[in-house]
């Protein structure tokens, strides 16, 4: 879909921040994904028009990055880390449990990702880029259910805040001090 009027203005403001317009491709793709839930071909064409390159160049750039989903995904994007620290502390079990549980659920997309830079909270995963740490597979299901029911407020599938109270980041604070 094309940008809404409001987002188009945001997009033009983003382009202004860079000395060369092409640099704005990544932020604009995030913006488009915030709006549509994925990065559509129409959006890539409009980004191309805004930054004055060919649509092929925009697609060329965007297809390199795993965070840009060029096909629709569920409202909740659950990214489970299975890299080396989570590997030995239960990450793969969480991934398997969630994958089985939500295999047929269109609202939830489960993906396996690389290290999320939160290994003191291993095993960890993200729901729309919000961190959930030190969980068992059953806890993980509970958390996803809380997001589904609206008990927890989710970010967009590109990780943009929808509720400013989340900035205090209760889940991230826990146990993060290190070396008390």
């Amino acid at each position, binding site marked *: 879909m094309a940008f809404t009027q409001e987002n188009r203005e945001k997009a033009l403001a983003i382009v202004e921040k860079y000395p060369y317009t092409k640099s704005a491709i990544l932020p604009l793709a995030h913006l488009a994904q915030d709006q549509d839930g994925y990065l559509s071909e129409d959006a890539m064409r409009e980004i191309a028009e805004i930054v004055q390159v060919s649509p092929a160049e925009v697609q060329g750039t965007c297809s390199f990055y795993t965070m840009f989903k060029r096909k629709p995904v569920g409202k909740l994007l659950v990214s489970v880390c299975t890299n080396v620290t989570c590997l*030995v502390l239960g990450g793969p079990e969480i991934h398997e449990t969630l994958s089985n549980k939500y295999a047929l659920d269109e609202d939830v997309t489960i993906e396996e990702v690389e290290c999320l830079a939160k290994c003191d909270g291993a095993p960890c995963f993200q729901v729309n880029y919000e961190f959930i740490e030190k969980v068992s597979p059953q806890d993980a299901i509970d958390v996803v259910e809380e997001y589904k029911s609206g008990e927890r407020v989710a970010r967009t599938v590109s990780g943009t805040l929808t509720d400013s109270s989340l900035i205090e980041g209760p889940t991230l604070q826990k146990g993060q001090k290190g070396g008390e």
Partner: protein
Amino acid sequence: MAVSETRIITRRMNESDDNHNIDTYISLGGYEVAKRALRMNPDDIVESVKTSGLRGRGGGGFPTGMKWSFLPPDLFPRYLVINADEGEPSTFKDHMLIVRDPHQLIEGIICSAYAIKSNKAFIYLRGELALAYDRLSTALEQAKQKGFVGNDIDGSGFDLDIVIHRGAGAYICGEETALIESLEGERGMPRLRPPFPAIAGLYAKPTVVNNVETISTVPHIIDMGGDKYAELGVNKSTGTRIFSVSGHVNKPGNYEVELGITFRQLINDLAGGIRNNGKVKFFIPGGGSSQWLTGSDEHLDCPLDMDEVGTRFGVMLGSGAVMVYDQSTDPILVAWRLAKFYAHESCGKCTPCREGTGWLEKVLYRMSHGQGREIDLDMLLDVGDNISPGLNAPFSQTTICPLGPSSVSCVVSLNKFFRDEVLRRCKSSQSEAEMTGNNEEVNV
């Protein structure tokens, strides 16, 4: 005697949980150094950073002051780029620094940009770190409102604009030239050097790329004085560093320590030792790209010295991630997962890495899942030799960037420390397959 932390860049976050709000930060003495720095001669700041012996905290360990002095003296504009694309397996220090003390980074940028006479700075932040993005954006807005970022900062005549740029999920963008490509709106593929970024980097202009921890340290160096900072640490590894300890330890977390303590002190005294009173089987001392060390006394008593670990054991302190594994861990499985990581994250530009990482991953998969063959380990070493000829440390490479050679570290370590165990397991799985007649090609 048990060691304790030496808090310099983690001091404020220890005193308050609310550092991301500018008022708290200022009440703890924040932005005072920036004000002072803007009254100094920029070259004196560069000199001070050189004297301090500060070395890059992102992995390379290159002296920061020297990096700054490579900028051609009369070419403008020039850019300062902050590498916040923290993606090295099991490294989580920059993430913490941004979430818990974003203003410290901004103050560091003000001091550093002023020192290198740059009026525009970019922070390339890893896309997945959504909360860090929110905190940093808010902090930047607050700093702009208070006049610490913008035109004529604090009446000094110095202008600075900072742009936060979110990445989108590519480990390779942590490599400085790939990061620059990505910032220009391209696929994140490394560039051949020369020209080095200091001569022709972002938009073909002189560019300095520094890690978050490095830049966060700069205000403290200006505050203490370079010579005072250089008194901390050991040999050419001066000052303090944050080590991210994770894995089978009782208290995983970030620990800021003076360089020179031993791995044993870091693991036992600070990270609380191994869970269930276990023993270290092996540990990875510098992020996934480093070779491994084992639980032997010789390895555990090695000091955290960026040069000594390399000359003695061929490992590196890299990004400061220390992954610790107890006796229950299967080293082949860990090696496979690391190889899978590199295969996934290889950008595909250089053939040895693009093809080699894929083969390492496939063969390690069958070895770790009970379908290995006796020749496998030697075959992996052969594949590795094509990516990093000689398999030495520091590594040689047939690729543009160090990602390829990094993927070989796990194989070299398997061979060095666990060759008998690997061969025994591969032999038994091979003979089992032959007995059951199930010895066809393994499809992975």
